């Protein structure tokens, strides 16, 4: 699920950035530092949408670095248990398949794949129904439901299922 929230971060800035473009420098550094990171609490920071305010800088003893408290608005993405996501399959093996929904990695184990789908080894390992009409392989797009998440300080990993109504392949590149 996406959220638009306000976060705060202390930016350490080298003195060489001080000057006319101080503000721009802070913002660009913030974007570089923050976008694409993941915090267990808020999820993945997708993009910074605005700066709320930049506080007074504090000069660090000894180094000359200055710390600015920056409040910024950003879009974060955090997966939840029970959430339905659309994801791209990245890897298929005997144990199941891995898929990605943006920055989130999801593993669907083989017992959460419908029973009528069989694993086929080969050049392009895939799961296929007995009549061959549905095939899950690399780059397939699937709709899945998250049934478990592991949230670490810096990463989020999910397991999902496609063994439910309206879940499964939504676009098969092989047939396209």
């Amino acid at each position, binding site marked *: 699920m996406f959220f638009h929230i306000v976060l705060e971060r202390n930016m350490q800035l080298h003195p060489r950035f001080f000057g006319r473009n101080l503000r721009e420098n802070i913002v660009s550094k913030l974007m570089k530092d923050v976008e694409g990171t993941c915090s267990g609490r808020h999820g993945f920071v997708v993009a910074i949408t605005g700066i709320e305010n930049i506080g007074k800088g504090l000069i660090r003893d000894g180094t000359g670095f200055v710390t600015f408290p920056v409040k910024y608005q950003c879009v974060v993405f955090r997966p939840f248990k029970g959430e339905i996501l659309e994801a791209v399959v990245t890897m298929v093996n005997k144990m199941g398949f891995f898929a990605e929904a943006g920055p989130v990695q999801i*593993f669907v184990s083989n017992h959460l794949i419908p029973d009528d789908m069989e694993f086929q080894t080969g050049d392009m390992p895939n799961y296929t129904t007995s009549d061959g009409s549905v095939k899950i392989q690399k780059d397939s797009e699937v709709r899945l439901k998250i049934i478990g998440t592991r949230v670490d300080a810096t990463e989020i990993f999910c*397991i999902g*299922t496609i063994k*439910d109504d309206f879940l499964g392949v939504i676009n098969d590149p092989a047939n396209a």
Partner: protein
Amino acid sequence: MSMNTTISVEPFKRLVKLAARAFYDDVSTKGENQSKNNARGDNKGIAVVVLDALTRRPWVNEEALAKDLKIHIKQLRRVLRLFEEDKLLTRAHRKETAKITKKPNGGGADGQKRFGREDDKNNKLHTHSYCCLDYAQIYDVVRYRLHRMRKMIKDELENNNAVQQYICPNCGRRYNALDALRLISLVDEYFHCENCEGVLVAESDKLAAQEGGDGDDNARRRRREKLKDMLQNMEVQLKPLMDQLSRVKDLPIPEIGSLQAWQLHEHAAGRAINGDPSSDDQFKYSQGSGYGGTPMPFLGETKVEVAFAGDESKEGIKSESSSASLKVLPPWMIKQGMNLTKEQRGEVKKESKMDSSSAAVEFSDEKKSAQENDDSIKEEYVKAYYAALLEQQRQAEESAKKQQELSQTSMSNGLSESASNRQVGKKAKREEGEGDDDVEWDEAPIEGNTSESYRLNDLNDEAPASGEEDDDIDWEEG
């Protein structure tokens, strides 16, 4: 009530009753603070009672329902809130005056003045809550509930949604699916143990391979048995409910409609059946305050309703307040130069009564004589009216400025004041606008005007104000 008697509702009622017994049998409304072992406070099954009671009535005032069921309103509310959360019923909250059933005081302008005060008192609005079963929703909710129940048990039985466990046959280390990312190997398509590089097996597979061994497995098996039993029991015990659901499936769903719509319908029906409308009801609607900020469409609907009621309400009021007939002005109100008809002074009460009810069928015999009387009264009225008009003009010239100011302020200030400031000639005119009682002596002289103001009066409580407006126009003309 008419809706209650339709046949198509019965299966739905049965559905509600079955659902109540299936799902709400052990629901207790006890607050957390109350002791659990208090036998007297044990109100298990109250939810069933309430639901049953609700099947027997459409929209019902919650306080009345509490009284009927002889339980405390708070207790009832707690149950109703539960049902509301479960989407079994719809509730409507309406601001109403405290004593809506209070009877309007009869008695011409005097009564009107009292009305004004009464309005102030009654305008302290209280929120009244009404509730009603929503059969369409109940049907869906019950089906969904059954579906969820079945699905939950089946999911657990089939180990869906469970996080897959993996075990290393070499070192016995366990992993689960959340570790998958670390376990994939680049050489083959199996997971490998981080310690010993052994190929991991999914735990269920291992279970199948192994003899059902340790206690953990036993517990799991017992759990499975239990779930199977539960599923079976559910299928058996809820069979009647499911049967009822399938029976109801193709039936048209009884639509009770919104509270306002229902009440309007109910009143119309009640009146059609009884033929004796209580003026209370009429009052309630003509008050308009009962609707407290309902959108205009509803007012539009009441218009129709009340016009219908208004015809009869004249009778109703008359018969109820026969002691104080509406048109008789109290003696202290009658001043010199007032263009009052005789019946307004209370002299020919009887005739006036007959006349007013001439529209009604029962009085058709006496209609003729009443008509004759009417003619003479009309003539008298016209004379008196012109006399008063002259008088009024004279007086108006005398104190034109002052009076105009007064009337203006009175307009803005309100009813009672304006009434006291009013001039004699005007007074009579105002009554004309007041309606209800005026029909007899108005009819001839200014047909269009009366009919118009009459309708206005009946429609809502704006009427007195509109009457005043008429007055003011007269003033300026004079």
